[in-house]
């Protein structure tokens, strides 16, 4: 639904990087690896939080 606020494993706040990551790596053409490195999301536990996330708010909102 919405991006998790923190990494499940280590507790780092990852939510704040979602919009930039989405814009550059998912919508844009940039390499996710490089975007994550630039955002300072270093560990793989935090990286998977962003890489594997899908926003579902737009999908569920018509059924409210």
């Amino acid at each position: 639904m919405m991006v998790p606020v923190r990494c499940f494993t280590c507790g780092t706040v990852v939510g704040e990087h979602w919009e930039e990551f989405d814009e550059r790596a998912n919508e844009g053409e940039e390499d996710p690896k490089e975007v994550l490195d630039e955002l300072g999301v270093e560990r793989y536990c935090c990286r998977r939080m962003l890489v594997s996330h899908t926003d579902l708010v737009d999908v569920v909102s018509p059924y409210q």
Partner: protein
Amino acid sequence: MTEEYDVEFVEREDREARFLVRGVTPAFANGIRRAMIADVPTMAIDTVRFVENSSVMFDEQLALRLGLVPLTTPPVGEFVEDDTVTLSIDVEGPATAYSGNLVSSDSLVQPADENVPIIDLKDGQRLEAEAEVVLDRGKNHAKHQGGVAVGYRHLQRVEVVGDVPEFEEPDERIVRGVIEDDGELVPTSEFDHDLTNRYPDQEVAIEDVPNAFVFHVETDGSFTVEELVTRAAETIEARATELEEAVQL
């Protein structure tokens, strides 16, 4: 018995640091590490009163998201465990409610990050809520955990013991952490964690330096690394004093 500790910073930023401590026992190093994770109190939202929530997520889900937002924690002594601060949020769609939209009743307690999306609001949806912030420890809930990814490794001493025989294929030698080379501290990231990059064609011996630990500490933004470490030491000190008094009785 007085201990001789020696602390030296290797890398240092506001929220992330690496420092070397010499003369510390493994038991004490672990005590400090555990205290940083679970025993240093931080502020976090604990109770939320929803005035209006017509978003696509349930009240409980939003309350959890709000709870996980890191808040700046005031200096020691400003708050005790039962004091509360109220934060309020009021956002109307179409818009996204961010952690930065939280308005605090106390300037000492503010969202540490402003850009955490709380909920996406569509046309006509609205989120209005009041939240109570409490001071608590990481032991009770992960949202109160001020230190993230706190750990330590032995400092490793690297010594050149000879040359690699001329026709031998050198194997990579992966080391992580910080090495000590002739008294100089070098983070392994400087040579891509591979000793053959730093000592090409040389045979090296690695050993752990006894009682020297390199801590890696990150905070969630509640306070600086310095504050986290000092407060962790203080919690241990406080418990030692408490035990001393309890034994005397």
